[in-house]
């Protein structure tokens, strides 16, 4: 079996599994909601993954950009009746625009200072959400009762059908990021993470590369903001706070930094684990905390990263025959 066929087969299985979810858990109800939330978080973690996993920049402003996407969509949809499908690119552009302006300041920062700079940015954007009443509805937020419009004769008003929209964006963003990472730009990003000084000496414009990553990841976050809006039908500032960004970093790290499957696994682990544990609300966070700590101590490279290491080690051991002969 050639690598190409096995790759296609893997894709077929993954797509079939994704497609089958609503049939298994039902088109309406709490379970499909959890599936949607996992998928939304996975896309968010992807978009953060470009920045954090591949380019090594830990941004704490990420949730703020997804907030900008959500508020933009809510405003243009409520005021001018812009459809869901147009909201997606417009929200992305809005988030990218703000990110582009802010990138002038934050790309000058490095490492932990970058994180703190993005913290400051994220927190100030949240304060704007809280205080710009006319647009954001203030601390109370905005209610939003619209559903995605039909397209190609397909109806997207139920949770199950909305799930397909989210899943499709999940797959598309996965493919998009993979393509991006294999491009020259992707190589820049990795160089940026591994050795910024060396990257600079190789003629990579570090500021520009950083700005591009920052803006692209903000754009994808903006798209997720629209999904959040249409799923929860209410947005308020606290959903886009810095702590939300930290939760995302947690998801990326639990899954494994710098891997593609990591964010999905991380989101699933983080959202499903509590369900499996099923404990009273006072004990639950304590246990989650303990599990988090144990995961980090025992699997320092995250779930997926550790699995990769183990898989590689196994293959090297088992491979007596050189690769060409196989």
């Amino acid at each position, binding site marked *: 079996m050639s690598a190409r066929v096995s790759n296609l087969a893997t894709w077929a299985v993954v797509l079939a599994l994704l497609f089958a979810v609503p049939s298994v858990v039902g088109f309406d109800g709490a379970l499909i909601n959890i599936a949607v939330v996992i998928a939304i978080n996975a896309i968010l973690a992807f978009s953060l993954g470009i920045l954090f996993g591949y380019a090594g920049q*830990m941004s704490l402003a990420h949730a703020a950009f997804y907030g900008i996407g959500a508020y933009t969509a809510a405003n243009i949809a409520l005021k001018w009746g812009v459809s869901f499908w147009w909201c997606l690119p417009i929200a992305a552009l809005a988030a990218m625009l703000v990110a582009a302006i802010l990138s002038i*300041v934050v790309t*000058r*920062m*490095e490492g*932990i*200072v970058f*994180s*703190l*700079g993005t*913290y*400051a*940015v994220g*927190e*100030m954007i949240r*304060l704007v959400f*809280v*205080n710009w009443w006319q647009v954001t509805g203030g601390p109370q937020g905005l209610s939003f009762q619209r559903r995605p419009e039909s397209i190609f004769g397909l109806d997207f008003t139920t949770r199950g059908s909305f799930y397909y929209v989210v899943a499709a964006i999940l797959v598309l963003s996965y493919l998009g990021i993979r393509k991006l990472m294999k491009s020259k730009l992707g190589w820049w990003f990795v160089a940026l993470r591994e050795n910024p000084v060396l990257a600079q000496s190789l003629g990579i414009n570090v500021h520009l590369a950083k700005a591009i990553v920052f803006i692209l990841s903000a754009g994808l976050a903006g798209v997720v903001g629209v999904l959040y809006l249409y799923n929860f039908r209410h947005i308020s500032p606290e959903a886009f706070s*810095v*702590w939300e960004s*930290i939760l995302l*970093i*947690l998801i990326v*790290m*639990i899954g494994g*930094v710098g891997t593609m499957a990591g964010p999905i696994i991380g989101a699933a682990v983080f959202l499903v684990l509590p369900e499996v544990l099923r404990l009273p609300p*006072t*004990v*639950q*966070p*304590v246990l*989650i*905390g*303990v*599990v*988090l*700590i144990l*995961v*980090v*101590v025992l699997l*320092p490279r995250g779930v997926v990263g550790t699995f990769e290491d183990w898989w590689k080690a196994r293959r090297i051991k088992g491979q007596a025959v050189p690769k060409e002969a196989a």
Partner: protein
Amino acid sequence: MTDLIQQLINGLLIGGLYALVALGISLVFGLTGMVNFAHGEVVMLGGYLTFTLTQSFGMPFLGSLVGSLLAGGLLGFAMDRTTFRYTRGTPMNGLVISLGLIMIFQSLAMTIWGTEPLTMDVLFPGAFQQWGLSLSIQKAITLVVTAVLIAGFGLFLVKSRAGRALRALAQEPEAAVYVGIPVERYIALSMVIGTALAAAAGAMFAALFSITPFVGTSLTAKGFIVVALGGMGSAAGTIAGGLLLGVMEALGAGYISAAFTDAYGLLLFLLVLSFKPAGLFGVSGRVKL
């Protein structure tokens, strides 16, 4: 004019507390490169402990403060030995661990003390009133204790053998090994000192204001801002950064609008770091403490 002086006093008071919180962050970050978000939770626990010691056990305030300080140090030691020491090679994992610790500590605090803000009885009634200025005795005590702790910490760093070893370790970690400094022990020591100061800050915080299980997170964020503002790993810079942030917030909230209190410090931070990425007192490169 009177108001301005009053505002400066307000700012220096809260800024001193910020500096106390930030010193521990600066110390641990300088030695290990680790971002410990759970640092603020020690402030919170220190505050609650002081609350319980004074309100329920009738201990005098300064006694409770020392008790919190010691307990904070012990907690820091326990955190380092049970968790953080496994992340020396990958400081980023220390961040995840600290988030786990936040969950545990917040949940514990909610269980023990509830979610409603707790306010201590006025321990030292009365205030100094002069030239239209007023300074409550509690605040005066806070100023003095903060100054003593900061000065003590500074003396420790500069004068003591252990302090010199800590600075050496931060400046040249490999060379520190070659002169025989037991690195692990000293990292644990830095954790102990940092959390002890944080718990003491928490004690004073609880006596001045009110305390909830959620105060720690915003204090951690402020602490990191202070550290970056002053210059990563520079103790003097951290102290200056803390005072500056406090004064900035007080002036902003006092003269512009209270709705953006947190934003003034953040704006200052972004401005400073845009023009001086190493911070106000930071020296670029590896020079620390």
